[in-house]
């Protein structure tokens, strides 16, 4: 009897493990509008799935990419599904299981999925794969790279930070040392120094995208080294950093600022002065359209200031004076023209 009960509980555990470890829930909003769009594409309802190593409710990268997929799918009338919080070893098998389920496109939000994608894509020539931040050499007949310009993201944050700092010390907190993170940091530093050559940038990595407490500790120590404008590329870790900044600012005048990304974060924390917004939904929408047209593959979709896929969020008008905004927008125009930061 006891043995039976043990067995039963083990099975229950195993089932809940399989069910929860990889939460495969078709998003209600996406599928609800699926019927509406079916008409536009001759009765067929297309399906897109996202496979993600971070959590989609991380208030950062995962959430931004998931919402981008939902928005793009809604506009095109696609159905969506996702699997999140998966380990590196499970990338390929998760991608493959969506291929077997008959999904038309798999969305992979990050460069880290490139190898697994190439591996699976060979066996499923009819499935389309869109890799966000994929390299320029990645695309094949059924793989497309979506490449927001990380340099420009860094330039925008750096130019604004350079104009706003009073101590000439800036902070940057990364999650992991990814190529895109390194490019953002380099751009941030370059643009800030172009604005004001005496600026120095403190940077550190939390070694995680989830450990909020580490973000708080890193920001605290940077503040004690006089950093007064922050930018980050570390999802939930960034929210810890913003908390540390708010704590330091206290209830008095706000003297330490944060620049958000990849969504418009104005209003989330009092210290946010502006955001660098990446329109992943717009770029993903181009992929969905290409799948419907049958023109998918062998393509790199660039996201830049010029084509509007990168943009600025709203300013905090009380913290960023009109003069600074004007000077900053001047730099942004130069970026579009390719003359800044030189």
């Amino acid at each position, binding site marked *: 009897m*006891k043995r039976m*009960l*043990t067995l039963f*509980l*083990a099975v229950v*555990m195993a089932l*809940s*493990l399989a*069910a*929860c*470890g990889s*939460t495969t829930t078709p998003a209600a909003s996406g599928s609800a509008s699926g019927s509406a769009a079916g008409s536009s594409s001759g009765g067929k309802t297309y399906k897109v799935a996202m496979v993600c190593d*971070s*959590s*989609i*409710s*991380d*208030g*950062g990268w995962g*959430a*931004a990419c*998931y*919402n981008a997929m939902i928005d793009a799918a809604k506009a095109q009338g696609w159905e969506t599904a996702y699997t999140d*919080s998966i380990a590196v070893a499970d990338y390929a098998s998760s991608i493959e299981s969506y291929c077997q389920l008959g999904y038309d496109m798999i969305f992979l939000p990050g460069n880290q999925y490139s190898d697994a994608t190439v591996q699976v894509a060979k066996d499923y020539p009819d499935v389309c794969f869109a890799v966000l931040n994929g390299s320029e050499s990645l695309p094949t007949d059924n793989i497309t790279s979506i490449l927001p310009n990380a340099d420009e993201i860094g330039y925008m944050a750096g130019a604004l930070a350079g104009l706003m700092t009073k101590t000439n010390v800036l902070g940057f907190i990364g999650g992991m*040392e990814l190529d895109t993170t390194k490019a953002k940091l380099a751009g941030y530093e370059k643009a800030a120094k172009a604005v004001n050559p005496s600026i120095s*940038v*403190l*940077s*550190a*990595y939390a*070694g*995680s*995208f*989830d*450990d*909020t*407490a*580490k973000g*708080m*500790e*890193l920001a*605290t*120590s*940077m503040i*004690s*080294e006089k950093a007064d404008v922050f930018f980050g590329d570390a*999802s*939930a870790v960034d*929210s*810890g950093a913003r*908390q540390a900044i708010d704590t330091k600012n206290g209830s008095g005048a706000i003297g330490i600022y944060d620049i958000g990304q*990849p*969504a418009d*974060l104005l209003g*989330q924390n009092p210290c946010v002065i502006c955001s660098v917004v990446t329109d992943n939904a717009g770029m993903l929408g181009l992929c969905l359209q290409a799948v419907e047209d049958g023109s998918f593959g062998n393509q790199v979709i660039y996201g830049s200031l010029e084509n509007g896929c990168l943009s600025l969020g709203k300013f905090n008008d009380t913290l960023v004076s009109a003069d600074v905004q004007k000077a900053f927008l001047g730099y942004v125009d130069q970026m579009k023209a390719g003359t800044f930061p030189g």
Partner: protein
Amino acid sequence: MSMSFAAEILLSTVRMATPILLVALAELYSERAGLVNIGLDGIMTFGALSGFMVCYLTGSPFLGILAGAAGGIAVNMIYAFCTITLCAEQIVYGMAVNIFAPAVAAFVYRIYFGVSSTLAQDTLMKPIAIPYLKDIPFLGDLLFHQTPMVYFAYLMVIFTAVFFNRTKAGLNFKAVGEYPKAAETLGINVIQKKYLASMICGALAGIGGAYLTTCYVNTYSDGIVAGRGFIALSAVIFGRWTSGGVLLACLLFGFCDALQLRLQVLSTSTPYQLFQMIPYAATLVALAVFGIKKAGPKSVGKAYRREER
């Protein structure tokens, strides 16, 4: 600068060591009753979520801590029932809790808060200064101007030391982990003690998790525990199953982690991976110096079958 640098490192050490300390004490109670619980990460995560939800809804961090404890007990009762009553393998069920509890927490958070690009924020517990003690120069403000949960953690260390070494109840408790059959012949209710240990373990680990979301950071996100449960597990072994040893182990780890984060900021050009090694390298060195002779409870990890000979 050096003064404030030292002060900040100490402050940061206390902040970083407290959640690990609470959870390591949880494991100490569990192991002293013969139950290896490697599900601490899972219990902590669930405690962090229930603490956050209650704190968010009621605005009271104290209710959040209580909810964290209750959530921790609830999760650990699954483990307790399977390993104590059903005599199942402890490691396997600990691992199952580690996978099951964070997934449930992620599910609940997502149902309630949805998926947005911003995280919900709750109110944090305010630090309370202890009169007189806080006036000690340098150390006073560091050690006696903290949230009540920090004081609670350190009082628990003292209480645990006294309980296990100076009270009859504590010695009985330890006997269960050493040689349960002998304990049973002396009239100690082994099963009851093991369940009690699991409840204390669940409560303390849940509080450790809730500390993260109600005293430390004001948001909850999946993965917030970030392996602290496993660090606590090793702190118990490192601290030789005594509360004083556990305290030292947690402080050492907290100090090294605080140090590496600061060194990263001070020396941007050095590869950060080098600094991130510090806490682990220090643990290895300390283990090599102090020895890793097994000093734990003799029957830890073994199921207790009452009617078996």
